[in-house]
């Protein structure tokens, strides 16, 4: 065994460049994986530290048990609790301090007129808590706010907004108020809590805006030193049930921290890491194909050497283990290097985020052994698996067979492979087609679309596997086509094209596996491009079909909203004909927690076409509710039926179904009247105002008037076309990120093609010598290698494009089954397809440069003498 190990080591060190290029694919894939895992852990640790710091001085928190939505979800709204509890809890023996926590949303407007923060981290409005241990904030300058009209802000907002002590600032709650900055505070030592802005007011003002008088968000409790928290928990709980009865809970700070960690995981970290892991997965699969290819060629090149070893008495397992050990060594070194690079990448990103002002509590990088072990193990397993299959195939050669053969050719494609490929591709395609119908059926019956998505997923995977298996068959016509096309286009270059075409065909399995790595990357890129283009088309269609107004005024996501005050001022502008406010919220409708839209039901009818099926919006007022056809089917309600709706403040109303509509893309399934919703919604707000412009008024003039009315840091005002464009812009933005990440997978695939080409050139040294001897110029030789690269890349790209568009169609069909008139939503991303093909050809030409140059540099006599 030691001898075999030595042999493997010698092989590796004697061909460092090949070992490097084999390992490179794995290094990139593992680095991506490790960076994702480490950055995820680092961010998690950062948030954990921040939450722990925020809750450090708290022993217990008392709050409402109830809320609407899923606890831990971003949209979750928790009920408030009675202010009277604060005083009673203070009197419980063992309680050192108790304070009212009053929280809502408040957006601080900076000196330049733009709102500070938002778009991710929360913009917190709160009552200032004086107790220095219950509050994690420390006053750096000035003092606490004491009366209405005073505010304390965090140091981050002060810096970002260029606000100094004593300044008067505007704050959107969402209605604009003006306050004097009397204090600037830090979160512990930091300027802010992970980029969250804070506007702290006196308790009365905060209650008036955020929770309502006599109500608080929670009561924070600190125990006296030496008091057992569990015992205190029991005592406080008793007091709580005495005062308010059921419906209020007491939790420890550890539970609170755990809950906050879970929330950030669900909202943000989980999503980000899952997406990055998916891309790392694609990169690793592609790397696996590249390694499989490299080892296949290496094994076939070494068959002579292996045969000699066998002839000299080495057993098959010994020959096999030599390759396996080599794979383990390459895999291990590459995975370790990749992990190191990944950790470095994560550290770089951490610093980048820190220098960009994203303070997420990440003092240093967190390297968990689990992340390192996972990254190294995944890299190692993929390398070994991808290399052992060719090694086993190679070791089957009879001892002397390889010594005799001169040119290794395997032009045939196994029947079993073809049969399995046809089965997988046809079966997968059938499943993808079926899933669309299943989703449509499920939508019609308002049933879960889950099974359809599962069928779609399995079908997509099967189709991909089928395509991989059948790729060698496609390589043959591709090679022949090349000969024809180049012959027709460049008569003088005919021979280069023909030679390249024949090389492509001579070992279709190799060509195919070289191309397949590209198929995977291109398929995913095309899938996303198809989905994006289809979605854009669909959104455009939906907006044009359902929204009849001229202007959309919308609050930035995560901001305080538009505010009822501004909304009514917009309504009264002379340029505005009809207007309707939309408030997005949560309510418990007929027993289920649902997203709802609250609006003026009567006004909305004049601005939208929601496809009313029965009843009518016209004349609908408070006390009525409009529901979608899906909702009506699911809950068995008709127009005139009464539906119970309850809100976060505990109020319950019986609302009569006034209309049933079919278009759910814009408004969702339940529409309430604003008058029924806003009084019970806590910090009441308007998120969107839809409006039409009065006769004879230019739309852009109207938009300017609205912007002027909105004032500084106000909502976005867009015409209908701008609104559609901005939706498309958001989709494009997401797509750009996806392209960037997948570009990596495509890069790995192209390196694989370059690698395969280099090895093929090496394998054909003698043929190259012969060609050069009989008069092939260096230029012609380079052209031949280049053509081979281009055909391989085009084969992979065309396969990926076809599969990607088909799967994209499947996804669009299944995902939009609930949407009306989406049957024709599929749009082929022509622009992206052209770009992908051009890029693939260019990249293939670049990939061929080094192998082509090496081939051209070969000395004719040396090449001819090669055995």
């Amino acid at each position, binding site marked *: 065994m030691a001898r075999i190990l030595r042999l493997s080591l010698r092989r590796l060190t004697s061909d460092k460049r090949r070992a490097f290029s084999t390992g490179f694919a794995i290094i990139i894939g593992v680095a991506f994986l490790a960076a994702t895992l480490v950055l995820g852990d680092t961010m998690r640790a950062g948030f954990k530290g921040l939450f722990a710091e925020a809750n450090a001085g708290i022993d217990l928190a008392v709050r409402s048990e109830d809320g609407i939505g899923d606890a831990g979800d971003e949209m979750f709204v928790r009920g408030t609790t009675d202010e009277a509890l604060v005083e009673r809890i203070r009197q419980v023996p063992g309680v050192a301090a108790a304070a009212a926590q009053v929280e809502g949303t408040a957006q601080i407007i900076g000196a330049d007129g733009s709102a500070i923060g938002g778009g991710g981290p929360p913009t917190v409005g709160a009552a200032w808590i004086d107790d220095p241990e219950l509050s994690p904030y420390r006053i750096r300058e000035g003092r606490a706010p004491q009366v209405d009209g005073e505010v304390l802000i965090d140091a981050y907002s002060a810096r970002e907004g260029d606000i100094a002590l004593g300044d008067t600032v505007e704050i959107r709650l969402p209605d604009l108020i003006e306050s004097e900055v009397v204090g600037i505070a830090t979160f512990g030592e930091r300027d802010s809590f992970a980029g969250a802005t804070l506007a702290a007011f006196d308790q009365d003002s905060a209650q008036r805006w955020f929770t309502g008088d006599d109500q608080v968000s929670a009561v924070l409790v600190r125990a006296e030193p030496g008091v057992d928290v569990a015992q205190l928990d029991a005592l406080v709980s008793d007091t709580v049930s005495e005062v308010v009865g059921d419906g209020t809970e007491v939790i420890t700070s550890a539970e609170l921290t755990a809950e906050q960690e879970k929330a950030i995981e669900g909202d943000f970290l989980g999503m980000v890491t899952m997406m990055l892991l998916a891309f790392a997965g694609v990169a690793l699969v592609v790397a696996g194909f590249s390694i499989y290819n490299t080892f296949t060629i290496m094994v076939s090149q070494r068959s002579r050497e292996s045969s000699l070893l066998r002839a000299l008495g080495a057993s098959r397992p010994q020959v096999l283990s030599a390759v396996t050990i080599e794979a383990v060594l390459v895999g291990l070194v590459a995975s370790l290097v990749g992990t190191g690079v990944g950790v470095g990448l994560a550290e770089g990103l951490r610093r980048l985020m820190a220098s960009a002002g994203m303070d997420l509590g990440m003092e240093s990088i967190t390297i968990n052994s689990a992340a390192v072990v996972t990254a190294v193990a995944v890299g190692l397993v993929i390398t070994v698996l991808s290399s052992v299959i060719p090694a086993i195939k190679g070791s089957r050669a009879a001892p002397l067979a390889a010594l005799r053969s*001169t*040119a290794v*050719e395997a032009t045939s494609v196994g029947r079993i492979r073809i049969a399995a490929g046809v089965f997988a591709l046809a079966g997968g395609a059938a499943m993808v087609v079926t899933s669309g119908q299943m989703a449509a059926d499920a939508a019609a019956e308002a049933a879960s679309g889950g099974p359809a998505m599962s069928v779609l997923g399995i079908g997509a995977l099967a189709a991909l596997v089928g395509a991989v298996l059948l790729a060698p068959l496609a390589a043959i016509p591709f090679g022949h086509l090349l000969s024809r096309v180049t012959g027709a286009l460049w*008569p*003088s*270059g*005919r*021979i280069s094209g*023909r*030679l390249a075409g*024949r*090389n492509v*065909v*001579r070992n279709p399995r190799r060509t195919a596996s070289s191309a397949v790595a590209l198929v995977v990357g291109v398929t995913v890129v095309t899938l996303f491009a198809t989905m994006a283009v289809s979605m854009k088309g669909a959104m455009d269609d939906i907006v044009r079909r359902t929204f009849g107004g001229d202007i959309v005024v919308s609050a930035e996501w995560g901001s305080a909203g538009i505010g009822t005050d501004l909304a009514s001022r917009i309504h009264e502008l002379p340029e505005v004909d009809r207007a309707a406010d939309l408030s997005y919220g949560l309510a418990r409708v007929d027993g289920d927690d649902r997203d709802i839209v609250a609006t003026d039901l009567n006004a909305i009818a004049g601005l939208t076409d929601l496809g009313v099926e029965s009843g009518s919006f016209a004349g609908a007022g408070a006390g009525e509710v409009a529901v979608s056809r899906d909702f009506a089917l699911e809950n068995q309600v008709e127009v005139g039926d009464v539906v119970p709706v309850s809100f976060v403040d505990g109020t319950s109303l019986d609302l009569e179904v006034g209309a049933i509509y079919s278009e759910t893309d814009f408004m969702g399934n339940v529409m309430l009247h604003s008058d029924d919703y806003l009084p019970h919604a806590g910090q009441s707000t308007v998120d969107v105002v839809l409006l039409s412009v009065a006769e004879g008024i230019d739309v852009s003039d109207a938009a300017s008037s609205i912007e002027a009315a909105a004032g500084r840091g106000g909502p976005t005002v867009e015409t209908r076309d701008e609104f559609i464009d901005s939706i498309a812009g958001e989709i494009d933005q997401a797509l750009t990120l996806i392209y960037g990440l997948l570009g990596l997978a495509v890069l790995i695939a192209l390196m694989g093609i370059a690698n395969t080409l280099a090895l093929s050139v090496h394998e054909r040294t*003698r*043929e190259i010598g*012969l*060609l*050069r*001897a*009989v*008069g*092939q*110029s*260096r230029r*012609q030789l380079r052209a031949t290698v280049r053509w081979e690269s281009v055909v391989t890349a085009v084969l992979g790209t065309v396969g990926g494009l076809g599969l990607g568009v088909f799967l994209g169609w499947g996804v669009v069909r299944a995902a939009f089954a609930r949407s009306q008139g989406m049957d024709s939503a599929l749009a082929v991303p022509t622009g992206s397809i052209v770009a992908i093909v051009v890029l693939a050809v260019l990249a293939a030409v670049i990939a061929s440069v080094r192998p082509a140059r090496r081939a051209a540099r070969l000395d*004719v*006599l040396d090449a*001819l003498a090669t055995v």
Partner: protein
Amino acid sequence: MLTDTTLTTTDSVDPAGDNPQADPRPHLAGNSANRPANGPANGPTVARTEAATKVYGAGETKVTALDAVSVAIPAGEFTAIMGPSGSGKSTLMHCLAGLDTLTSGRVFLDDVELSSLSDRKLTKLRRDRIGFVFQAFNLLPTLTALENITLPMDLAGRKPDQAWLDQVVRVVGLGTRLGHRPSELSGGQQQRVAVARALASKPAVIFADEPTGNLDRNSGIEVLKFLRSAVDDLGQSIVMVTHDPYAASYADATLTLSDGRIISHERAVA
């Protein structure tokens, strides 16, 4: 795409007006009929060396493969180069064919001095003026027999002379097997295809490096007869490196090398 600049150069430096592009058969046919019984021919030469010296390595490991060899290869004849292993016979052929360069001295092919040519011009010269037959692995496995035959013309981007091609193909005698891949042909058939390829582009000279070395006796004879008939019937000049005296007996003259020097240049007794 590729124009024949080399050939025009050749024409201009050929004061005798012996246009190498013209079919060499007529005057060579006469030549072969009147060839002298002994010694080097005095007629036109197709290639020659002047004090050709080739040294490999330096110091202790210095090997002189060719030691001031001056030789003229007569046009329209079948010349064999013989000698033991390491005698320099392959080096001489490689230098004559523009595959290798001399340490000192000069090589002329068609009166063109080879050392002055760039790689591009040498490649063109090999393609258009020289035919090669190697010991083995003469053919591209991915091309059919016919495609292998026309390969040099295809590389030059010019149409083969169809009548000439038909004649060559007829002489090869492969018939219906022309559309087959080399792997489907016997060793002798493969070598005959290689000779046909060398002939097809009407080169000034064909260099054959141990063309029968890998063949059994009967196949070897088949190839030698084919080479012989190329000289007799088509007027082709051929230089063949061999260590087999029987193979050399098919030649018009035999050059024998030893330790990088010519030790004899004999004409065969017809």
